[in-house]
């Protein structure tokens, strides 16, 4: 008798927990505004300070153009910046995607084979210590002035965070989950696809966010060393001509590319891992 009563009341214990689900769209919009207004305000203050300093003539205009002059250049030659910006974006994305593919593959092999890990890991660490920017000229000698060296530098710079985050993720899987999987008679590939890989994705994405911004740097460094297109080239040209408004315009577009790619990775994370995104809303404040 008492047993029946007890089991009836049992589900109640969770009612409070299940109710704290997703907030409504209005609430979410308010939350987003709450999170963004502070960094946005600081950014505006910085632009304001830039404008005041440049417009007041405290600094010569060939050293520091006004924000207006910079904007004029962007609006004046949208085709030029767009064209070169696209080249840089293309190199960045290609380098990033290759780094992701190769990085994930390396991580998986290292996690499943201790021999490979012991062989490869120290070399990876050593390779990370070598400043890849310093080898960039060599890549130009080897691969010419085309897209090759830029992509290669982007790959090499973005590769490390991908491998490290993926190895961490694959190793962070709950050992009890693996034991459970063994009692289910799961094949190794099943355990990998259904448990290990999805469990590693939150770690991987934190690495991807670092990697994508680094890939932009890699591509631009490649363009600095030897190129006739891309934003790195634009900046070098502008620098040579003392055309600081163009230089600043190039910088602005470059930063924009970095931000857009970063946000794209975040959106992909939210779409692929809704279960994860909903659990860490504090980290989201770091987005902007």
């Amino acid at each position, binding site marked *: 008798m*008492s047993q029946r009563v007890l089991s009836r009341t049992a589900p109640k214990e969770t009612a409070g927990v299940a109710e704290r689900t997703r907030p409504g769209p209005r609430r979410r919009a308010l939350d987003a505004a709450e999170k963004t207004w502070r960094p946005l305000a600081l950014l505006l203050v910085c632009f304001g300070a830039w404008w005041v300093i440049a417009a007041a003539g405290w600094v010569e205009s060939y050293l520091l153009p006004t924000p207006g002059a910079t904007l004029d250049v962007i609006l004046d030659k949208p085709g030029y910046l767009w064209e070169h910006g696209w080249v840089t974006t293309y190199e960045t994305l290609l380098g990033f995607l290759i780094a992701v593919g190769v990085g994930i593959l390396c991580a998986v092999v290292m996690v499943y084979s201790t021999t490979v890990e012991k062989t490869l890991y120290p070399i990876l660490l050593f390779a990370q210590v070598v400043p890849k920017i310093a080898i960039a000229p060599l890549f130009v000698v080897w691969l010419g002035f085309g897209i090759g060296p830029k992509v290669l530098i982007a790959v090499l710079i973005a590769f490390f965070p991908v491998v490290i985050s993926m190895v961490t993720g694959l190793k962070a899987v709950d050992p009890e989950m693996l034991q459970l999987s063994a009692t289910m008679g799961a094949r190794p590939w099943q355990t990998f696809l259904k*448990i290990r890989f999805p469990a590693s994705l939150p770690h991987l994405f934190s690495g991807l966010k670092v990697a994508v911004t680094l890939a932009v740097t890699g591509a631009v460094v490649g363009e600095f060393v030897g190129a006739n297109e891309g934003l790195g080239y634009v900046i070098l040209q502008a620098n040579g001509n003392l055309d600081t408004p163009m230089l600043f315009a190039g910088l602005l577009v470059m930063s924009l590319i970095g931000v857009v790619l970063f946000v794209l990775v975040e959106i992909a994370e939210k779409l692929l891992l809704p279960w994860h995104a909903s659990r860490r809303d504090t980290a989201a404040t770091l987005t902007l």
Partner: protein
Amino acid sequence: MTTVNDTALNKAAPDQSDARSHRTGSGTASAVRLDGVSVRFRTKRKDVTALSDVSLDVARGEFVAIVGPSGCGKSTLLKLVAGLLAPSAGAAVLGGEPVRGPRRDIGYVFQRAALLDWRSARRNILLQAEMRGLPAAAARARADELIRMTGLDGFEDAYPHELSGGMQQRVALCRALLHEPPVLLMDEPFGALDALTREHLNVELNRIWRETGTTVLLVTHSIPEAVYLADRVVVMSPRPGTVTEVIDVGLPRERAYAATLASAEFRGATGRIRELLGAAGAHD
């Protein structure tokens, strides 16, 4: 077995005798058998003997609880039965076959629910079917049946982070029962729950055990939980773990919670276990 229990049995109600005869009647058909099993771990500094010469025979359909101080190798014992760990000496036999590697003919429940965050409650339960390649339609039907049985209705589509600890553990239990395993191994399944939730789940586990007829091996720190749920309670000594005594609870299998806790058999058994564990110098 022990004096305490024999006297308790003599005074007991008539319907408990069928619980006894059920066990003795199954005779040779033991679900789990451990023959002189020892487990030694080698760590950097020293060798640790986790289990020393443990023998145990669990009949089909029987509920056996294992209690003992922390570090007496209770969990190790379950892992041996599941084939997740090989003994240093002796042998484990499950369903008449010696255990030589991970076994599929069991259900396993850990202290932590160990659910996949990215799957709803139902899909977490169905993981068992996917890994085993069971027919999907039958597995879904069975999952729905278990969801009803454990009172998870209405929470099938909730994700683990939306569920309380008690609900998560119910999901883990459903997952362990999906393939109707002959043996259910539970490693402190309710250890992380609050007292009230724990009582609810004890009552439910008793009912589920009777409904499914599965053999259960339960490791627990709670003496009342062990006595309320089990046909027999194995009391273990601290490291190296050995079986100190096996206590026959002598209660009918259908047990109302309050009445059981107030019964002479219950108090006799819990008293005796406390005495044994106290003598071993443990206060867990």
